[in-house]
């Protein structure tokens, strides 16, 4: 027990050292944080995507690291199941609940019920008035950065294929709105109407056939300049489609930083133009730290941003590697 305690303290110290690089972590030292004897409920809409799995894992690992008990619930991308799990979770009266992604319209009444039951609610990547803290990336930045990178690569003019199937997911809304805002300054960059719809499941296949169809519809080289998606799984299908059609003038843009997409951006021959890479594992961990601080009576801000990095063709070799290493370390492919 004492040995493992020492290990824990060591791990915490190392974690603190790592955390120091994140400007967002507030002054409280990591040693003070503890979830001993606490039960933390974790509800995720699904874990089929790299980002989701990493964040979900980050939350669980951190709760255990801090000595707490975790009730981990994966709804398998089924709204009905997530609602049922949340309902039962409320009855279980955990010390705090961390909720990760999902349809806000569906979730909000239930998040309200969590608060009504007196259970502190924390969210990961889900902006809702019911949460005490939302830990996420700065999606305003991400959205603008990736849009500006795209506009720069296009030379300020051309047509963009945009996937907009998840506007009801808050982070996608922000990124899409930022794209639109950036484009107001570049009137020669036009979004092709109607927009494309990304779907779950079969995201890659569906994006592949959508982009292939659109390229067939606009056969002249240069008629399409870029493909944009609010996450990077459609980007995989889009990149494959562009390459298969031999339309290498088209570049693809996405957000999240799944290892296979980072590898694509690192490959100079690939059509993947850039990806905004987030730190989902850190985001998950940080949300637990926020919960622990709150339960220890400390003040917690309404949102915490964990830094992200724009990986483009120029910096990919240098900036991409740490993300691939982190993925390997977490054992998530």
């Amino acid at each position, binding site marked *: 027990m004492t040995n493992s305690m020492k290990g824990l303290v060591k791990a915490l110290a190392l974690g603190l050292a790592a955390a120091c690089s994140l400007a967002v972590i507030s002054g409280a030292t990591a040693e003070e944080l503890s979830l001993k004897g606490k039960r933390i409920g974790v509800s995720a809409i699904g874990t089929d995507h790299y980002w989701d799995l990493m964040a979900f894992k980050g939350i669980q690992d951190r709760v255990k690291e801090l000595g707490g008990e975790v009730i981990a619930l994966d709804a398998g991308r089924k709204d009905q199941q997530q*609602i*049922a799990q949340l*309902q039962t979770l409320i*009855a279980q009266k955990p010390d705090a609940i961390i909720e990760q992604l999902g*349809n806000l*319209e569906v979730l909000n009444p239930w998040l309200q019920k969590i608060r009504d039951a007196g259970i502190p609610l924390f969210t990961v990547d889900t902006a809702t008035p019911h949460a005490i803290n939302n830990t996420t990336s700065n999606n305003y930045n991400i959205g603008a950065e990736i849009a500006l990178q795209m506009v720069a690569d296009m030379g300020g003019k051309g047509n963009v294929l945009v996937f907009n199937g998840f506007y009801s997911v808050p982070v996608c809304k922000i990124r899409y709105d930022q794209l639109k805002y950036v484009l107001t300054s570049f009137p020669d960059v036009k979004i092709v109407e109607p927009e494309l719809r990304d*779907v779950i499941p079969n995201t890659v296949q569906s994006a592949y056939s959508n982009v292939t169809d659109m390229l067939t519809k606009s056969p002249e080289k240069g008629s399409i300049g870029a493909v944009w998606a609010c996450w990077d799984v459609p980007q995989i299908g889009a990149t494959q489609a562009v390459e298969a059609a031999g339309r290498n003038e088209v570049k693809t843009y996405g957000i999240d930083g799944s290892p296979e997409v980072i590898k694509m951006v690192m490959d100079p021959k690939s059509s993947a133009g850039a990806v905004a890479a987030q730190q989902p594992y850190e985001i998950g961990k940080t949300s637990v730290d926020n919960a622990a601080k709150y339960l220890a009576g400390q003040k917690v801000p309404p949102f915490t941003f964990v830094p992200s990095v724009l990986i483009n063709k120029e910096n990919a070799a240098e900036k991409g590697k740490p993300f691939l290493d982190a993925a390997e370390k977490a054992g998530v492919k």
Partner: protein
Amino acid sequence: MSASVLHTEVGVSDEKQAAAKSAGRRFGALVVRLGAIAAFAAIMAYFVVFAPGFTSTFNLINVVEQSAILGVLAYGMTSVIIGGGSDVTEGGIDLSIAANMGLCAAVYATLLSMGYGDFLSVVAAIGVGMAVGALNALAVVGLGILPLLATLAVLNVAAGMELTLTQNTVVGASSPLLGVLVSGSFLGISALAWALIVFSAIMIVVVHGTSFGLRLYAVGGHPEAARAAGISVPFYVSFTYVLSGFCAAVASILTVSRLSASTPGSGELLLSVLAAALLGTVFSRRFVPTMGGTLLSVLFIGLLANGFQLLNVSSYWVNGVQGALILLVVAITSFARGSEGSR
């Protein structure tokens, strides 16, 4: 299988032998059936003892509430299986029921969000649900297509129409009716739980307490005998598909109330619906689907997920256990039926 072949072409002594064999099988089936029920009971007993808070009234009402949508759908499926016969490959089955619910939910939520009131939106949703049911009936009864294939095709029609209508997006909805369903309660039981209780009572009475229900079983069990007795088999079979569509529509309204929206992915429910309808047969002595049996298995599936969560066992196990139980029940059913040689 072999028994059925013998039946048609051999003499009295062999028939006696076959009868003895079938009696043996029946006894075996009874043992296995009681075994399955005992397994159900054992799982529940385990939850009662070890899952914290499992038996609290609050928790049990939660489970009833969580089971309402699945329950209503499972009644639709059960009625189709009763009327079409429970032969797994050629009997009655409605694979379109979950997709139909998705379509009805989309219609309901879209109309509400366009500003049409509850009355019109509910009527439209129920109309669409029954129309999809009627399409199934047309394909199965009118065109004589195998239910498995006919309803699979209709599944795709319904799913496609839902996608066209919603563009695969979430359509938010609110209305006075939804408000009552979400937050209403009577005698400490929530509106959604009442919906299941009332719907169950109606289905049990209609199917098990009326001559109509008796004729429905006759149609499914022995269509030739039913025809000889002057029962219109096509009418009864068609009726079950339209009823199934009606159940899909009712479930869609419950879904929209629970999710405050119509969302893509309703089709996912199909497996649980089939599981509930098939598992239910274990509660009947003759392995036929009954409404009561379906209710018990719906609650069992709900309690399984609930108990696992309370025990902090990964939810991934629920699917596995559910699948294993279906396999067990289908195996028992075919075993028990082998002797009867339905054709």
